[in-house]
């Protein structure tokens, strides 16, 4: 398979990695830190992929794992308290109540919601990326939907 230059790779996948990192951390700076680490790991690994799907799944899995490590650090927990209000949402033009409802979910639910609804990945791929069983992934997604339905009950969204 043809090797991608850094420019091609970033053009194709930087937003994907950045968004999953942002969904996790809800903070621009932290999302950038995770994104940087993921792409530097990619270069250092010297990996070769059989197809584009494989490359995408690898990047998502490493983004999730890097995010896991990142949010466990004491530094992050301290920062998260201080910067809670200082995320980039203020720079975004307009957000729906859906955005805020997801933002209020605990982080592990935000990640699975993002993989399912934004990346439109099937459960069998999501459980591989998250490193959990298919049953656990289904249960987590179900729980996330229940919480979202409760938060958005007045608008009657179709899930």
């Amino acid at each position: 398979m043809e090797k991608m230059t850094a420019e091609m790779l970033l053009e194709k996948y930087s937003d994907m990695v950045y968004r999953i990192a942002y969904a996790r951390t809800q903070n621009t700076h932290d999302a950038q830190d995770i994104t940087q680490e993921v792409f530097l790991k990619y270069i250092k690994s010297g990996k070769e992929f059989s197809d584009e799907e494989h490359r995408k799944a690898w990047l998502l899995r490493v983004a999730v794992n890097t995010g896991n490590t990142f949010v466990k650090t004491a530094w992050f927990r301290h920062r998260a308290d201080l910067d809670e209000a200082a995320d980039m949402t203020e720079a975004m033009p307009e957000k729906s109540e859906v955005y805020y409802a997801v933002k209020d979910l605990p982080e592990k639910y935000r990640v699975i919601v993002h993989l399912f609804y934004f990346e439109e990945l099937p459960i069998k791929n999501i459980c591989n990326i998250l490193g959990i069983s298919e049953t656990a992934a289904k249960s987590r997604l179900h729980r996330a939907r229940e919480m979202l339905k409760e938060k958005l009950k007045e608008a009657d969204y179709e899930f």
Partner: protein
Amino acid sequence: MNFKDEYKRDYSQIAADEEFINQLEKKMNNTAPAKINIKMITAAVSAVAVIALAIGAGTAIPDEKDGGIALKGETAVSQTLTEGLFDIDVWYGHAESDDEIYAVFAGLISEGSLETLYCSDDSMFDDTDIPDRAEMNELAEKLAAAVRTNEKAIGAEKRCMAVFSSGEIVKFSIWDNGIVKLDDCAEIYKIN
């Protein structure tokens, strides 16, 4: 209203900052892959050595079809030119036999310089392939104590990569019945 459409619309507005991406691209271009393919280097060096031999000796390369006898005294010329022509930097240094190579591997583990161990069902390694510390230490201990065997490998093969603090990388396979084979050795070893 559809939840997915709304969510996708909101999150489509979130994108990495252009300046950040430009900086990241520069960093990526200045970052080299950590893994060095020793086999490729060895092959390349061997190819250069063969060319140097042909040019330096001023003779044709022995042709097997002709019984390998192109000129008298060719064997002696080959040895003189290839010995010490390139100092190949490999993780096992000057070890030659498989037992010596394995002993270097065991020594690196025993001296505590194993930084990370990856074990995967395929040859692609990432952070998800790192066993937990206790499991890694247990396997490291077994690897350091492995002994040469004539047994056959049975069961599923796991591909592993040991990364040492010196930067050395050793790749090997482990089968279900405890057979270990380093990529750089022909002999097989067994862990208990």
